[in-house]
């Protein structure tokens, strides 16, 4: 009855603790092997062949120590020695030893057995250690590779937590520290909200730079262990490690592998944070450089017409009464022209600043390209002499949803540019065409054109072609392209066949533009009402 209870208890215990079950099984197995050898010895070799039986025992013990481990093999050594003494050494059937030779056999076999067991145990421990350190190296190597491959902070954190989870068999989460608080938390699945539950432990870990929370001396009541990520400039974050299931008896403290991983992660996080800071510092320097270059170029361009205005107007003020009438008129005309030029320059500067700062408001309406082109023709005819502009707008071009003022600006800039670089004896052409869902507008000049390697540069800010004769700021095409892109279109330049430059842009056609037929009825109704 007691035995049954013990067995059941043993089974329950075995189920409770895997380790214990395995240990008991091994000990039983080693005893079974020793019993088998004893039976083989009695049946096969007879009572008097103690030497061969001892060898057989030693072989069995060696096998047990290799397969079943140290304790079973020591048990086997003890059992073998007793069995040898009882069954094979005189006096037979007794544990007493007959004389010095028997005592030597007994002691020699027992000592050899223990020695073999100890050796094997040491070997196995070395193998295990080698395997563990290999796993550790592989884990750290994989982590290092993952960390090196990623440039963005969140992705880096995601990969790092995934590696920690695999290596430590736990649930990991990275809390990134910015200044005095945690900015955000990242799990292997992505960015998550910061849990406030254990924030105290996390804060403790990051301020004291030692692990806190579950399994440690500080805040042990927390649900996870918090390992600070300490890099060269201090704590960059905290790694939270939560066991997959809460088990009694397991060690919730982070393994040395996980601690090493945390060190790697800390350095990688710091690297990403630093490179971000460096980048923004670089951008700052770069934009400062561009700003001063722009300022010096612009102030030169703005001063030129001002100088002319100053000279011409002072001529009028100082010598006006002595100048012949045609000369006075000439001075007046020059002042007028230069004032206009100054106005144009300021306008384009204003436009480009608005474009760059994103304050360009596109207010889209249903607009007719024919009207927009018409507006451009009128303005150009009014202010430009000596150049010819022709336009071809097919009658079937539907209305587009665009900002008419801005698209007119685009065309004016393109035409101005074409006039600057074109030939006065050849007309500049505006062509409108439709091609699969987009309207394509081309402004074609037949001037000198530009070198093929310059074509990509014409849209750059403040870019002026080497052959450019008259002074603009080199902003016209930049602004034009910016406006078109704000409309969801694109702009490009190419050589005009036979010489010259063609600048084209496309604007998306909108679905279901208003048409005459669709609204005729509505118009009719309102007409009846108003008549």
């Amino acid at each position, binding site marked *: 009855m007691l035995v049954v209870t013990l067995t059941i208890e043993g089974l329950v215990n075995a189920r409770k603790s895997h380790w214990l079950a395995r240990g008991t099984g091994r000990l039983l197995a080693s005893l079974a092997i020793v019993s088998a050898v004893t039976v083989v010895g009695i049946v096969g070799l007879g009572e008097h062949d103690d030497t061969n039986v001892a060898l057989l025992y030693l072989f069995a013990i060696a096998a047990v120590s290799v397969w079943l481990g140290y304790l079973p093999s020591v048990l086997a050594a003890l059992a073998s020695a007793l069995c040898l003494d009882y069954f094979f050494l005189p006096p037979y059937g007794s544990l007493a030893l007959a004389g010095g030779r028997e005592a030597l056999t007994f002691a020699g076999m027992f000592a050899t057995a223990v020695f073999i067991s100890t050796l094997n145990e040491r070997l196995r421990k070395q193998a295990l250690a080698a395997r563990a350190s290999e796993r550790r190296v592989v884990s750290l190597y994989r982590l290092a590779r993952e960390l090196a491959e990623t440039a963005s902070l969140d992705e880096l954190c995601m990969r790092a937590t995934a590696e920690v989870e695999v290596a430590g068999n736990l649930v990991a989460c990275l809390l990134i520290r910015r200044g005095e608080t945690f900015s955000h938390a990242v799990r292997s699945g992505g960015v998550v909200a910061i849990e406030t539950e254990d924030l105290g432990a996390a804060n403790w870990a990051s301020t004291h730079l030692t692990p806190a929370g579950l399994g440690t001396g500080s805040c042990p009541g927390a649900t996870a262990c918090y390992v600070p990520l300490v890099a060269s400039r201090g704590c960059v974050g905290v790694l939270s490690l939560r066991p997959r299931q809460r088990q009694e008896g397991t060690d919730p403290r982070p393994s040395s592998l996980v601690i090493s991983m945390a060190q790697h992660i800390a350095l990688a996080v710091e690297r990403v944070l630093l490179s971000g800071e460096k980048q923004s510092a670089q951008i700052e320097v770069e934009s400062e450089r561009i700003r001063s270059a722009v300022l010096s170029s612009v102030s030169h361009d703005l001063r030129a017409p001002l100088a002319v205005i100053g000279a011409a107007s002072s001529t009028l003020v100082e010598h006006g009464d002595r100048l012949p009438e045609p000369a006075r008129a000439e001075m007046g005309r020059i002042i007028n022209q230069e004032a206009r030029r100054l106005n144009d320059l300021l306008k384009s500067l204003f436009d480009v600043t608005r474009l760059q700062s994103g304050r360009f408001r596109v207010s889209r309406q249903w607009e007719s390209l*024919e009207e927009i082109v018409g507006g451009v023709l009128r303005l150009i005819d009014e202010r430009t002499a000596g150049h010819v502009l022709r336009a071809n707008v097919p009658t079937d071009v539907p209305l587009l949803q665009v900002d008419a003022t801005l698209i007119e600006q685009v065309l004016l800039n393109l035409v101005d540019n074409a006039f600057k670089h074109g030939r006065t004896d050849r007309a500049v052409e505006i062509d409108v065409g439709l091609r699969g869902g987009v309207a394509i507008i081309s402004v074609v000049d037949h001037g000198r054109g530009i070198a093929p390697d310059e074509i990509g540069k014409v849209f750059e800010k403040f870019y002026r072609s080497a052959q450019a004769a008259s002074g603009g700021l080199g902003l016209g095409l930049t602004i034009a392209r910016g406006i078109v892109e704000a409309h969801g279109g694109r702009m490009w330049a190419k050589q005009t066949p036979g010489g010259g430059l063609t600048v084209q842009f496309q604007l998306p056609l909108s679905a279901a533009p*208003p048409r005459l037929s669709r609204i*005729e009825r509505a118009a009719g109704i309102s007409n009846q009402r108003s008549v």
Partner: protein
Amino acid sequence: MTPNPCILIVEDDKKMIRVYATNLETEGYRVFEASSGQDAIEEVRTRNPDVVLLDLGLPDVDGLSLVPQIRSHTTAPIIVVSAREQEADKVKALDAGANDYLTKPFSVPELLARIRVGMRSRTHVGDTASTVVAFGHYTFDLEGRRLSRGKRPVHLSPTEFNLLATLARHADEIVTTNALLKEAWGSAYRLRGGYVRVYMHSLRRKIEDDPTRPKYLVNENGLGYRLRTSG
């Protein structure tokens, strides 16, 4: 003999006022000035100007809000003057009752032309006899609902007629897209500028020789349309 027409300039830049005044006085106008919103209302009340030139960028008050205030005191045409950044304000000013606009910097001939149009439209107000508007070779009879080119009649759909009639009633003045929609379609069609563009397109095809270089039905980008009867 009637006294010379009187123009009120509402503008805060004294130098600009000098330039306007020099030109306008040379043309024979009498010129009064106001450099703030309050002065402007006062001057409108006491001087009863024939044309008001109103700069939208005044220091003490939003020029836009002055338009209805001035309108409540006088029927005189209001020409708003604005800097380029105030595109949106121009439409609002026109819809609020201004008659025309000028964008700085503008030339003196432009200024004089706008003032002349303003003066002329003022003399037309209440003049029921002028229901026939002539432009180029065309004669447009609003009463008889007829448009003819020389002797040949030009057929217009009812909507086209409404549009052209609205523009003709304000000949040479700008009519905003909103105002056109309101007058030609009824207010239910506000904000549907696309309709105006579609009908303008067909109207121009009937009237203009080169629809991309319209002589009569001129589009003022982003603002509205103008029927040009001269020049």
